[in-house]
């Protein structure tokens, strides 16, 4: 049985290096990745270049493509910005707070009956440096920056990579497939005019 290495990445680049090593194998040890991401202490100078905000909605900024094994993305949430309820297309999803706080609300998958809206399982506030994990077997979630004064920044790792997911209407459970787009890649803003139709 392999020993879980205790490695504390000092910098974001260290974290990325270790992630490349971990994901070079075919199996993912969820606890190992979660602990690793949690142990990186966020230093804004190291990720500022990726943290590009939009005034209208949250943004997704690609940091690293993990040799095709994962996507490492920084999400920037202005005050009041939130996502719709969504799934994760059979992938692992790790979410670490780099700045500010985010509220995560977990939902059950909608069933055919659907009385009174989708069922909320739980909700919690994630604080700076905490790392959450979710996959489709755990359920669906909505992530929001509920602060009216502070923006939030989070670091997400998705493995395998995916660019479509389903969004769900809370009151009816109706689902829609949505293409996920990047606001920037490797610190450079993407000059597209497509809009992610993620109303909620």
């Amino acid at each position, binding site marked *: 049985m392999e020993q879980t290495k205790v490695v504390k990445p000092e910098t974001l680049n260290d974290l990325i290096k270790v992630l490349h090593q971990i994901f070079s194998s075919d199996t993912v040890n969820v606890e190992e990745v979660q602990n690793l991401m949690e142990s990186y202490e966020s230093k804004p100078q190291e990720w500022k270049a990726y943290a590009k905000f939009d005034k*209208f909605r949250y943004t997704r900024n690609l940091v690293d493509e993990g040799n095709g094994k994962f996507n490492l993305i920084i999400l920037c949430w202005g005050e*009041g910005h939130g996502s719709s309820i969504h799934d994760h297309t059979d992938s692992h999803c790790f979410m670490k707070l780099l700045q500010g706080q985010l509220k995560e609300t977990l939902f059950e998958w909608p069933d055919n009956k659907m009385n009174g809206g989708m069922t909320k399982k739980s909700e919690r506030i994630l604080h700076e440096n905490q790392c959450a994990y979710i996959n489709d077997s755990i359920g669906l979630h909505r992530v929001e920056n509920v602060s*009216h004064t502070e923006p939030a920044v989070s670091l997400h790792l998705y493995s395998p990579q995916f660019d479509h997911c389903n969004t769900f209407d809370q009151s*009816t459970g*109706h689902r*829609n497939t949505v293409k996920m787009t990047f606001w920037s890649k490797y610190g450079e803003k993407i000059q597209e005019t497509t*809009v992610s*139709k993620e*109303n909620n």
Partner: protein
Amino acid sequence: MDGYEGLEGEKVLNLSRLNLDNLDLEHVGEERKRDTQQLLLVYNRFIMLPGSICHFSNLVFLDISCNRLAFICEDILRLSKLKTLVAKNNRLDEFSLPKDFGTMSLEVVNFSGNRFEEFPSEFLNLQRLQSLSLGGNRLKTIPAEIEHLTSLELLYLGGNSITSIPPELANLPYLSYLVLCDNRIQSIPPQLAQMRSLRSLSLHNNLLTYLPREILSLFQLQELSLRGNPLVVRFVKDMTYDPPSLLELAGRTVKSRNLPYKPEDLPGNLVRYLDLASKCPNPKCGGVYFDSCVRHIKFVDFCGKYRLPLMHYLCSPECSSPCSSNPQSDADSEDENSVPAHRMQKVLLG
């Protein structure tokens, strides 16, 4: 007290997190005072905006968030080039601002996380204001005079106690981002549908049970949040209908038959009353109504994603709703021509 160049080459003086309660500029050279364009005083212990601040004559950006500010002195008026003022998380209220604050050329003001209970009247004169945030305060209303802020593009009022929206808000010609989430709003004025500039509208966590049907014309809207509102999901068949008064019936007859009248023919109050006639939204009905109307919740797909309850006013229960909705929607079969006159009860609006 190191300064450095900001991203756009602006000269920044960063005095954040230094436990300051006064701003002693003895050790700041004259040239430095003249050159500094951004001043950061975040996370200190200021109770008042320090008067010495006016020595930074070319200041463009000031952030004094996370202090204990209860008062902003008149000296700020001397910062004639100040464009951005950020003072989040302080103790400011509507009595904290100097009288002539409205004469400043401010473009961005962020006073979120303070103690404003009323919209400060001094703000209403800021003609150049493009971005205003009063999130996380204690506002109960938005003044109609908000329409004076003709340059406004962003208005953030989330996290207050606002109960209604003045229709005058729709007169802001450039407003593209409107945040009203986490308030106590019960209805949206239909005039908001005239806002062609509106790109993002945040209404989540309020007390909305329906939306005005005019909202359908906001087709240029790209973000809309409605979650956490008690929107009526099931169509309530039963509606009550208060029979119209004789005045109303007479007025309807005059209007729908185009009976000619001159202002000299009638007492002034009746002329004004006739001017208030509203057209029934049913295009097949030429009728009008005054006070007496039947409310009718109609479910319509919107942006291809929602089933929103929309509010129609009809001149009588016999009028059916004209809204072009998805013919397959099951809400349709419930309401078209289906409500018999003898079964009228008030529409339950949550």
